[in-house]
């Protein structure tokens, strides 16, 4: 079984490589976004030294790291599921001897690894040459960051699986999936560090899984979270993985029953 998933990851990785225009436009998209926010923050800071507890320099680094992290955890698995449901392909998937959701997770991982290797790593090296980025000092720091990034990937993919499974019940929900994407970008701290929000909003966001997707991993990278507090963040991420597992399982069970009733 493990071999199957390894193969799925590899195939998705190769598929990503095969679409070269897609690759180039992906680089441009990330360049566009990072550039937009880089200049925007430059203008927002103006002459001010520090905003929301971050200096202008820290903010630039934050923007770079946050987008690079996103390159790994981001995927469109929910839209793929939706398409397979609409085209009726999902019925065929369900009679195959594997777990459909795990297959999707594996494909997402293949995609994430591709972007990590071909976008994020070169991107970070480039950013490191231009910006004063403080890379994690020890192997241990790197390890902790990568671990939290992997968990961020799992949480984000879980959310995608959730919205994807909803297609079984709503038939068409592109709108919701698009809305989810921008909401995740905002609430995960990608376009605005969580510390910028008013206190009441920060409290509210503490109850949601989004900030562990980007804000915390990025802060671990930049060393803004002390090694002694890192364990807490990792545990929080782990807790969210466990919590999200529940609705996915329940919905998935109902979705399959629904499909049987409707006859595909």
């Amino acid at each position, binding site marked *: 079984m493990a071999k199957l998933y390894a193969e799925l990851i590899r195939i998705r*990785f*190769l598929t990503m*490589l*095969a679409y*070269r225009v897609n*690759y180039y436009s992906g680089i441009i998209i990330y360049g566009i976004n990072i550039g937009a926010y880089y200049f925007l923050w430059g203008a927002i800071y103006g002459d001010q030294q520090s905003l929301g507890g971050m200096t202008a320099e820290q903010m630039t680094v934050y923007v770079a790291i946050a987008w690079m992290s996103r390159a790994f955890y981001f995927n469109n698995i929910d839209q793929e599921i939706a398409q397979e449901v609409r085209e009726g392909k999902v019925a065929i998937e369900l009679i195959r001897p594997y777990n459909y959701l795990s297959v999707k997770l594996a494909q997402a991982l293949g995609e994430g690894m591709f972007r990590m290797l071909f976008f994020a790593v070169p991107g970070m090296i480039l950013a490191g040459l231009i910006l004063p980025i403080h890379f994690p000092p020890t192997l241990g720091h790197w390890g902790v960051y990568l671990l939290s990034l992997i968990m961020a990937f799992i949480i984000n993919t879980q959310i995608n699986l959730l919205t994807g499974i909803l297609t079984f019940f709503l038939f068409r929900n592109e709108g919701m999936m698009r809305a989810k994407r921008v909401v995740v970008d905002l609430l995960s701290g990608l376009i605005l560090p969580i510390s910028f929000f008013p206190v009441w909003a920060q409290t509210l966001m503490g109850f949601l899984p989004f900030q562990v997707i980007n804000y915390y991993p990025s802060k671990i990278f930049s060393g803004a979270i002390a090694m002694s507090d890192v364990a807490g963040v990792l545990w929080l991420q782990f807790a969210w993985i466990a919590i999200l597992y529940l609705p996915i399982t329940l919905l998935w069970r109902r979705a399959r029953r629904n499909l049987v009733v409707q006859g595909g």
Partner: protein
Amino acid sequence: MIKVSQLQKVFRIHQARSGLAGAFRDLFNRQYKTVKAVDGVSFQVEEGEFFALIGENGAGKSTTIKMMTGILTPTDGEITINGFVPYKQREDYVKSIGVVFGQRSQLWWDLSPTESFRLLQRVYKVEGEDGKRWLDRLVEELDIGGFIHQPVRKLSLGQRMRCEIAASLIHKPKLLFLDEPTVGLDVLVKQKIREFLRNLNESERTTILLTTHDVSDIEALCKRVIVMDQGKLIFDGMLSDLKEKWGNGTEIAFQFKQRIPVAELRGLLGEYPCELFAENEYAVRVKLQRSREMLPLVLSSVMASYEVSDVKVMESSTEDIVRNIYSVDSEVAVNG
């Protein structure tokens, strides 16, 4: 009506390197191979003809059809259809043709066929009384009236295909292209579609071009057949000539009332080019090469000379012929 001369289409195909390292190299530097999908094809078609274009997968059929429908521009050569050059005057030209791609729907998935028909009437500007009457006739002849108010996604394949054909004819085109129209349909639906097409061809003198894998389609409908292989036209003529050329010939099995030695029969049929096989003392099989002229001669001379209790004429089927073409050809390809 259709004039195709020295038609050529060359593709550049990306050659993927194998393995991860290969895929990585492909990202920055691609290798291409040129392929002649259609290579010097010429033929002419008169108005009102019903003809088939056959060939194996990759023989160049679809590419030829795509060039004839104006979707693709030829690399070289000329096409004139209905007085238009398809790829140059595409928007005017396509008003005079109808196209059914068996694998691809032209109906709106979520809406009923009636809605699609109405929209297509607008697209082709045939909204008047004439257009309406013509559509009514199509609906009646294709027998689709019972379900054209249901969403397309709820129709069966056979129902949908009949609606596709109606949709492609909405503007009463002079020329109809059918690309694999009967794939996956059951016998009854095939029958209905064939009957409709035959009728359309006869009453409206609509020229119809059919590509198909289904040999029975051709036997039921087409007089003329064009065979393509590896981009080249390897046969163009009547179905009967095709049988003549590629068939196993015609066999006549005689059952005589008395014993007939084969040598005696050979003497009788002396000047005719045929082979004789003795089944037993009373039965002889005669294998003819050029069956059309030979068949009546052989039959009449044998019947006139001997008392015959039974005669069977066995023609080789188109299916055999197609198989023959392909097998002979692949041998050529291997040797060449």
